């Protein structure tokens, strides 16, 4: 732990600077290039010189990596044509150079103001991620922001080899407000923060096996987690696909009708729900050790 500031409170550039080796980050297509969205300009919405994503190369522990961080303050980190093209290019560069690639996510998915262009861009990035995976080049999604990883970016994060989450991060497709609108407040009260986090938050995702690491809300902890994964990969093979199919079927069979997330936690071996709810990421990992097997 560096103890300086909370990861979820940092900006995209602060996050990258705090996660990689000091002074090692070289930004690609930086703001002076002024790559701005023509869609937003036409709609009279402020543009951003980086289109809401910072990309570049850096090192962690002396090891090279490509890294990107989405800018949540700019249209919710949503993916437009330029934003998506920068990301696709970065993963393609990673595949070409056989250098690991990490994406620090803060995005609700497709940028609606750009229509279908952002939707296609997300799927192009997915194809580029799988190019990396075919070459056993590690791809890592980091989910630890306020906005989380939702919509198409939620799906994209599950295409990466690994997901590093903090207890603050959330992973899903439809967000709580959308679900509440659809199912009613009785089924899902989006203002119930405990329920929202137990539905999509890092602890539940870690427990179920969808997050590979659950770390403290701190750049030093995120750095350490990425560093550990840089030499690993999760190959896309028939054997792994079959194992995953069996695991996901088992999960659905066990918990498909379970309304209360506490029951999922208990089912996964968490004994003291109150303590686990208040635990930090690493404390929760210790509590959950038996359940996750």
């Amino acid at each position, binding site marked *: 732990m560096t103890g300086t500031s909370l990861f979820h409170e940092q900006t995209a550039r602060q996050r990258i600077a705090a996660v990689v080796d000091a002074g090692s980050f070289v930004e690609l297509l930086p703001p002076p290039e002024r790559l701005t969205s023509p869609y937003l300009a036409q*709609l009279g919405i402020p543009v951003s010189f980086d289109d809401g994503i910072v990309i570049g190369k850096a090192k962690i522990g002396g090891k090279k990596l490509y890294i990107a961080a989405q800018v949540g303050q700019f249209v919710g980190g949503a993916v437009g*044509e330029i934003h998506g093209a920068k990301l696709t290019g970065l993963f393609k560069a990673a595949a070409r150079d056989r250098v690991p690639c990490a994406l620090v996510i803060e995005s609700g998915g497709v940028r*609606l103001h750009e229509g*279908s262009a952002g939707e*296609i861009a997300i799927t192009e990035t997915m194809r580029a991620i799988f190019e990396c995976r075919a070459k056993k080049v590690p791809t890592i999604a980091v989910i630890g922001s306020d906005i989380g990883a939702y919509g198409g970016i939620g799906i994209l994060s599950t295409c990466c080899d690994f997901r590093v989450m903090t207890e603050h991060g959330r992973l*899903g497709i439809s967000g709580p407000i959308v679900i509440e609108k659809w199912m009613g407040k009785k089924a899902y009260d989006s203002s119930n923060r405990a329920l929202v986090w137990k539905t999509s938050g890092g602890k539940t995702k870690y427990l179920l096996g969808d997050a590979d690491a659950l770390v403290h809300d701190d750049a030093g902890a995120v750095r350490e987690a990425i560093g550990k994964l840089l030499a690993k990969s999760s190959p896309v093979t028939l054997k792994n696909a079959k194992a995953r199919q069996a695991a996901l079927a088992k*999960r659905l069979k066990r918990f498909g009708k379970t309304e209360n997330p506490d029951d999922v936690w208990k089912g996964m071996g968490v004994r003291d729900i109150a303590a686990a709810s208040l635990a930090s990421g690493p404390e929760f990992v210790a509590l959950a050790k038996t359940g996750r097997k």
Partner: protein
Amino acid sequence: MKQPSPRALLGKLFGGSAKGIAVEKSLITGYAQVGGKAVCVIGTCNGTYIGNEAALVLAAHVIDCIERHPRTPIVMLVDSAGQEPNRLDEMLGLASYFGHLLSCLEVARRKGHKLITIATGKAIGGAFICYGMFADRIYALDSASVGLMPIAAMSAVTKIPAAVLQKLSKTMPSLEFGAEPFALLGGVEEVWPSKGDTQARLAKAIAAASADDNRAALGKKRGGRKLALDIRNRVLAESAK
């Protein structure tokens, strides 16, 4: 435009061989023939919602195809409204179930299965992302509803007046909803007339399919998505320095 029944549509695409395709709970799985050659078929119909269970059903069929019918092309039909907003599916990891379906398709691609998508009905947002848009080549019937969302829905969410979006969509096909504008972005290789000979078109599409993602290049050539390819290439060039 009135949509044909799922069975009528399958008959049109696969002729008599469509009898080898099951339609259950609006999910399509099976094997059929195109131009005298075997194909595997997965998909959705009736504009159904899909969730964790549906993703597993489709993924299981992809795995079955890889194991029992090596290198057989996989045809994906898309007519789905996407994920139904649902807390339980989300809690159990809907994104992971969709990601698993995509991984299974990637295994198939790497093992030499060609992947062809036909958007037959609704191909909107997440429904299209979670399998259809992952094909080697993507086609759409002219009667299909393809795109992120209709302008009225986009207006409701972004609070931008529909009239403004409508006007801009004339010069920015990305904002327009439909198969034709989606093709201008490169998101669809070709739009097929519903009344035409889709069997012949499908046979040709399978023969011509290649795993290289050509969509950004198409979008630039057709003028609907002018920036994506150049920006990607700039990242590739500058990262190599």
